[in-house]
C-alpha cells in the first residue's frame, strides 16, 4: 500500500496539477470495497491535507458502527457496500466517437429539452471539440467572480488552495455523525463544489455547477460547501435537466450551507438521475443529506428543488434557523413515474427568536410510483414567536400510484404559530378533454396541467432553469396517462 500510494503521489504531483481534479491520470480506480485502506487511498490520490484524512478516517470508523436507516417509505434490495468501487478518477475519455452511436431515445429527450448540440455531446459522453471545452467558458466566468473575491471551485481545488476555510466549515452543518449516508460520504467523498462569498458581496452571476461539467463525472459521493459571509448574497444552481445515466447505482451526496448575519443563499436543484426502465430495473439510488444553517441574525436560506429522476430519492433539505429573525424556505416539486420511489421533505429547526419558515411541497405521482412527503417543524423553548407555514399538495395521475404525507411537529414554545395545509387531487378527465378540445394533445395537456400545479415552486427557480424544468416535468410524465 505504502508503495502504491507513493507512486500515485508522485504521479499526481509530477503531472500538471494546475487544474486540480481534472488532471489526467490513467489507471485511477480504488480496489473494490471499503476499508481504512480505501479511505487512505482516496485521500492520498487527491493529495489532501492531513486534517482531511483525519476527518475521513473518523467518519469511516463511525460509519462502521451504524446501520442503514429503514424508516423511509422506500423499498430496495440490500446494498453490498463491499461491492462498490469508491474511487475512480474523473474520466476524460469519451464513451462515443460521434452522436450516431448515442441512444436515439436519449437524443430525442435532449431535443425536447432544447439543449444545445455541443452540450448534448458532453452530456452523452461524445468527444467534444477542444474549443468548446468547458474550461474556456469556465475561465471567463471565474475571472468575473475573482474580481469580487468570490471563490467557486471544485472541492479538491479548495482543499489545496483554501484548506483553512474547508477546515473551519466542513462538517459543521452536517457532521459525519449525522446519519449513515452522511458518514459514508464523509469517509469516501470524491469531489464536489465549494463556494465562498465574502462580506457584503452580492454575487453577480448564478453560480452553477454547469460551468464545471467535468465535475459531473465525480457524482457518486459529492460534497458541496457554501459559505455566505455577512451581508452577502448568492444564488446557486445544482444539477442538470438532461437525464444523466450513470453506472454508479448508489449516490450519497452532502450539501452544507452557512449563512452569516444578513446573508442570503438561494439553492436550486434540478435532479434528473436515471430513474431505471419502465419496469423499474436499474436506476440510481439517491440518498442525500442537505442542510443549511442561518447562523446570523436576519439571514435567509431557501431550497428550491425539482426532483424527477432516480429510482429512489431519499432527500430532506433542511434548515437550522439559529439567528434571530432568520428565515428559511423550502419549495419542492417531486415527480415519480413508473416504479420510482421518492421520500423527500424538509426539516425546519427554529432555534432563534422571531424565525420564520415556509414549506411548499408539490408531489406528483404517476404509474406505479410512490411519493412521500416527510416534514418536521421544530421550535425550541428559546425560539419565541417562531412561525411556520406548510403546504403539502399531492397530484395523482392514474390509480396505481401512491402519495403519502408525514408531517411532524415538535413545538416547545407557546408563542409558536404553525399552519399546515394539505390537499390531494387528480387530473380530471374534464380538464384533459378541455385541453384536447382546444387542439392540445394528451402529452401537452398533462404538461400544461402539471406545470400549472407546480407553478408556485417553478416560479422560484432562476429563469433559465425554470424554462428547462417546465419541459422536464412534461417529459417525465410522458406516457403516464391514456
Amino acid at each position, binding site marked *: 500500500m505504502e508503495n502504491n500510494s507513493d507512486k500515485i503521489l508522485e504521479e499526481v504531483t509530477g503531472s500538471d496539477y494546475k487544474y486540480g481534479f481534472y488532471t489526467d491520470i490513467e489507471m485511477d480506480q480504488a480496489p473494490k470495497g471499503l476499508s481504512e485502506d480505501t479511505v487512505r487511498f482516496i485521500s492520498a490520490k487527491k493529495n489532501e491535507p492531513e486534517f482531511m484524512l483525519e476527518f475521513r478516517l473518523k467518519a469511516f470508523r463511525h460509519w462502521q458502527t451504524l446501520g442503514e436507516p429503514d424508516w423511509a417509505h422506500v423499498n430496495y434490495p440490500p446494498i453490498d457496500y463491499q461491492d462498490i468501487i469508491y474511487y475512480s478518477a474523473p474520466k476524460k475519455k469519451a464513451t462515443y466517437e460521434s452522436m450516431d452511436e448515442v441512444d436515439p431515445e436519449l437524443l430525442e429527450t435532449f431535443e425536447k429539452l432544447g439543449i444545445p448540440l455541443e452540450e448534448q455531446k458532453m452530456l452523452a459522453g461524445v468527444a467534444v471539440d477542444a474549443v468548446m471545452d468547458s474550461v474556456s467558458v469556465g475561465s471567463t466566468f471565474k475571472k468575473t467572480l475573482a474580481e469580487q473575491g468570490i471563490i467557486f471551485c471544485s472541492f479538491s481545488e479548495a482543499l489545496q488552495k483554501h484548506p483553512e476555510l474547508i477546515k473551519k466549515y466542513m462538517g459543521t452543518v452536517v457532521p459525519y455523525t449525522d446519519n449513515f449516508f452522511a458518514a459514508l460520504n464523509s469517509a469516501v467523498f470524491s469531489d464536489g463544489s465549494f463556494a465562498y462569498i465574502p462580506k457584503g458581496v452580492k454575487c453577480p452571476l448564478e453560480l452553477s455547477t454547469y460551468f464545471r461539467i467535468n465535475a459531473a463525472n465525480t457524482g457518486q459521493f459529492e460534497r458541496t460547501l457554501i459559505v455566505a459571509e455577512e451581508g452577502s448574497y448568492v444564488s446557486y444552481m445544482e444539477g442538470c435537466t438532461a437525464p444523466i445515466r450513470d453506472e454508479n447505482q448508489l449516490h450519497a451526496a452532502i450539501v452544507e450551507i452557512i449563512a452569516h448575519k444578513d446573508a442570503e443563499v438561494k439553492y436550486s436543484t434540478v435532479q434528473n438521475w436515471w430513474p431505471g426502465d419502465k419496469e423499474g430495473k436499474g436506476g440510481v439510488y439517491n440518498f442525500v443529506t442537505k442542510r443549511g444553517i442561518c447562523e446570523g441574525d436576519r439571514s435567509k436560506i431557501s431550497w428550491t428543488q425539482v426532483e424527477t429522476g432516480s429510482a429512489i430519492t431519499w432527500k430532506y433539505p433542511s434548515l437550522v434557523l439559529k439567528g434571530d429573525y432568520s428565515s428559511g424556505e423550502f419549495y419542492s416539486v417531486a415527480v415519480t413515474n413508473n416504479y420510482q420511489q421518492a421520500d423527500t421533505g424538509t426539516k425546519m429547526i427554529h432555534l432563534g427568536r422571531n424565525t420564520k419558515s415556509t414549506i411548499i411541497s408539490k408531489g406528483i405521482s404517476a404509474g406505479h410510483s410512490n411519493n412521500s412527503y416527510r416534514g418536521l417543524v421544530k421550535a425550541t423553548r428559546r425560539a419565541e414567536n417562531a412561525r411556520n407555514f406548510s403546504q403539502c399538495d399531492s397530484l395523482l395521475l392514474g390509480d396505481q400510484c401512491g402519495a403519502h404525507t408525514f408531517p411532524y411537529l415538535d413545538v416547545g414554545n407557546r408563542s409558536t404559530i404553525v399552519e399546515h395545509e394539505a390537499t390531494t387531487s387528480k387530473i380530471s378527465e374534464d*380538464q384533459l378533454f378541455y385541453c384536447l*378540445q382546444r*387542439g392540445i394533445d394528451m402529452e401537452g395537456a398533462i404538461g*400544461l396541467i402539471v*406545470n*400549472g400545479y*407546480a407553478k408556485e415552486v417553478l416560479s422560484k427557480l432562476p429563469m433559465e432553469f425554470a424554462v428547462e424544468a417546465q419541459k422536464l416535468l412534461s417529459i417525465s410524465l410522458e406516457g403516464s396517462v391514456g
Partner: protein
Amino acid sequence: MLSIKNLSAAINGKTILKGLNLEVKEGEVHAIMGPNGSGKSTLASVIAGRETFEVTEGEVTYLGSNLLDMPAETRAREGIFMGFQYPVEIPGVSIANFMRTAINEKRKYLGLEPMTGAEFLKLMEEKKKMVDIQSKLTNRSVNEGFSGGEKKKNEIFQMALLEPKLSILDETDSGLDIDALKVVANGINLLRRKDNATVVITHYQRLLDFIIPDFVHVLFDGRIIRSGGKELAIELEEKGYDWVKKEK
C-alpha cells in the same frame, strides 16, 4: 360542412343519442333546443370527440372526412370548437399561456410557424375588444375563480382566437344576465362568416332574440323530433316542450 346520419351514442352502457340526423352547411346558424337531459351536451361531446362517449351507430362527415376516425385534438385543429356548458378550471395555467399553446399546436398541425409572443399579444388585444374582456383576465388561471359570466365570455374569447370553422356552443347563454348575454351574442355575431357555421345549444328562446338562427331543431330523448325556422323557437317558448312531445 357537417353531416350526421343516424347517430347513436352511449355512456356507461346507457344509450343517450338514438338515431340522430343533422345537416349543417357553411354560413348557417343552427339552434338546438330541448329539455334537460334530452342529450344536447352529449351531442356536442360526441362531435368534439370526447372518448367517454361511445358511438354505437351512424356516420358523421365533416368537410368530406369521416369525423369519427379523428381524435379530439385533430378535430379541434381541423376547426371544430366547442363552447363548454361547464368550463373547467385549470389552476396555475394562465389563459394567455393556454391559448398560445392551443394556437401554436394548431399552427404546427397546419404546417405553419409558431406565433411569436408579440404576435400573440397583438391578436389577444384585438379579440379582447370583441368580447369586452378585461385585460387582466387573460393573466388569470383558466376559469379559476371566474364568475359564471366570465367563464362564458372566456369561451367566446377562445373561440375568437381560434377562428373555428364549426362552433358548437353548449348553453353559452345560461347563467348570464342580460348585459352579459348581449356581449356574448354580439361576439358570436361578429364571428359569423360565410365560410363558417355555428350550432347554438340553448334552453331558452331568449338567446335567439340576439342571434338569429337559420334553423331551429328540437332534441328530445336522443332524437331531433322537429326542425324549422326561427319561428319554431317562438312557438316553443309559447307552448312549451310538451307541445312537441305530444305531437311526436
